[in-house]
């Protein structure tokens, strides 16, 4: 290599800086959305609970024989005509008994009180599972969507790796340095670095395990064909024998797994399978006991205990956080928020830097980038909040509730992105940031009011914990959004005298 060539090659830090900026920006536009919905998915069961305000109080534990008989009757009724049926057992997070089945690609449930066995009529809702599905498929299908999310997660790993290299010198000295009063872009950089560096183990873990969970789609040559447990009767062609009484099966399984460690029951033409709950330990082991469907006799315990299987279960469980008790779940939630902050501040800094260095100040790509950044950073949380609002505003007995709730996310997200692009093309993108952050704070801060107003008739005798937690979190996030809008408004007012007030000029001032 000649000396001239060596000089023309940018330094390692510059190369990594370019990689960090461009891969981070392009992947970050969608990773922001994945982080928002993933953070919500940490409390997916609780969000579903919030979205079904009729849910009565119930004590978790092994359901009564009467409740199990009624659930078994519902299972029998659905068998033969539906694809998959399983019976979710009560847990601390969800105290009801659910017979869940697939109806034209939509999960539907019949709900039973675990003690009395009475049917609990709950409104149909997209629930927390909707955010969970979006988180790992972007609603683009379980093959293409998952692979796209995996590619983005690999982009995140590249961004994290390059970020560590470019910040290596200042990594430890500036570990907890946050200087919000300094001149811009220092506060943005500090927020970005704090969110990324302090939560670096979480970020690496979540991106890596996220790809690994569905690695058989990313590397299809490692996919294993699953045995068809249902046999020939899977699509209803086989006449399944009547179910044995479920209460003795559960009592037997409880002796092996523990009474509070029973997850769900699966049914096949020959067996009834009781699966261990995912909250037993970090690894999602899916240990299960098979029982003969005709006699109810125990066939055996199936457990994968090889070191590799345990590692796989451990890494999957670490990502899913199903093992986590409430305090740890909050840590996951806060770490998810940090991921959002990291990407949001990263996108903003990218735009600031491009604005400063661009030869043409108002080029079309720049305006599109500014519009898309706003449409995802604030548009996605707004759209998610919109789903919660729609859930409570729609009539409870509307037949197409699930579809309308789900569509709300995409319609709102699209509308907000169009709004953001409009503001960017009109060179008033900062106004767009202020408008969307103000709207977000309004919707979040008023969510408790909406909750109380639409839950009033069931409120007596309900356990308020979940509702209070969702409402309080909403208010806290709303106040943060309000603070953001106030800060942005103040800075915009200070720079209105500047000609051609652009995003960077407004935000840098």
């Amino acid at each position, binding site marked *: *290599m000649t000396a001239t060539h*060596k000089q*023309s*090659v*940018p330094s*390692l830090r*510059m*190369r*990594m*800086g*370019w*990689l960090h*900026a*461009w*891969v981070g920006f392009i992947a970050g536009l969608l990773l922001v959305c994945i982080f928002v919905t993933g953070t919500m998915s940490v409390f997916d069961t609780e969000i579903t609970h919030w979205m079904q305000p009729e849910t009565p109080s119930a004590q978790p534990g092994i359901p009564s024989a009467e409740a199990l008989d009624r659930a078994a009757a519902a299972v029998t009724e659905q068998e033969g005509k539906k694809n998959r049926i399983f019976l979710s057992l009560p847990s601390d997070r969800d105290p009801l008994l659910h017979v869940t089945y697939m109806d034209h690609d939509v999960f539907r449930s019949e709900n039973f009180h675990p003690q009395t066995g009475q049917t609990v009529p709950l409104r149909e809702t997209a629930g927390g599972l909707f955010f969970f599905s979006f988180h790992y498929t972007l609603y683009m299908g379980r093959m293409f969507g998952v692979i796209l999310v995996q590619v983005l997660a*690999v982009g995140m*790993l*590249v961004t994290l*790796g*390059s970020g560590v*290299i470019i910040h290596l010198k200042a990594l430890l000295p500036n570990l907890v340095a946050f200087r919000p009063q300094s001149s811009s872009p220092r506060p943005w950089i500090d927020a970005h670095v704090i969110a990324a560096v302090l939560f670096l183990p979480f970020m690496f873990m979540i991106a*890596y395990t996220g*790809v*690994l969970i569905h*690695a*058989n789609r*990313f*590397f299809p*040559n*490692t996919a*294993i064909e699953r045995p068809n447990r249902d046999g020939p009767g899977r699509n209803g062609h086989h006449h399944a024998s009547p179910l044995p009484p479920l209460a003795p099966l559960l009592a037997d399984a409880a002796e092996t797994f523990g009474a509070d460690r029973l997850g769900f029951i699966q049914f096949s033409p020959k067996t009834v399978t009781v699966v261990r709950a995912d909250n037993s330990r970090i*690894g999602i082991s899916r240990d299960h006991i098979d029982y003969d469907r005709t006699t109810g006799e125990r066939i055996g315990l199936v457990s994968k205990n*090889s*070191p*590799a*299987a*345990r*590692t*796989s279960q*451990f890494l999957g469980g670490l990502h899913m956080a199903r093992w986590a008790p409430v305090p740890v779940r909050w840590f996951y939630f806060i770490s998810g928020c940090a991921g959002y902050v990291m990407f949001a501040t990263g996108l903003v800094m990218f735009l600031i830097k491009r604005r400063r*260095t661009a030869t043409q100040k108002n080029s079309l790509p720049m305006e599109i980038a500014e519009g898309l950044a706003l449409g995802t950073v604030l548009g996605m949380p707004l759209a998610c909040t919109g789903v919660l609002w729609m859930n409570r505003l729609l009539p409870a007995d509307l037949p197409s509730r699930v579809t309308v709730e789900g569509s709300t996310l995409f319609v709102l997200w699209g509308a907000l992105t169009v709004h953001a692009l409009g503001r960017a093309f009109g060179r008033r993108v900062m106004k767009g940031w202020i408008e969307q952050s103000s709207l977000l704070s309004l919707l979040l801060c008023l969510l408790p009011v909406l909750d109380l107003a639409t839950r009033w008739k069931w409120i007596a005798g309900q356990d308020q914990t979940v509702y209070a937690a969702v409402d309080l979190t909403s208010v806290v996030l709303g106040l943060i959004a309000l603070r953001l809008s106030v800060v942005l408004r103040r800075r915009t007012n200070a720079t209105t005298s500047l000609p051609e007030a652009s995003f960077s000029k407004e935000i840098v001032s």
Partner: protein
Amino acid sequence: MAFSSYYLPRLLIASLLAYPAGLVVATFLPHLLHMPRPDSFFVAQVGAVIVVPATVLTIFGTRSLLGGLLAAVAVIAATMLIALPLAAFGPQ
């Protein structure tokens, strides 16, 4: 920092090589391991998922392309060495 003639081709080369590198690990590692297929596939996935971003970073991070390719091969070998003990011990 604009799109220079250096960065974009290098990123394209790195991206085009990264996935095949992972695929090679995912394909050949299971053949080296004497363990049940699901387990060997998992160990291969553990290595392959690390290899993809590591290859991009390595090829992009080195000054010369040849050096990058050699370093990427070293990274793949190192990854396999790290991934194998994971299968042997695992969290107990």
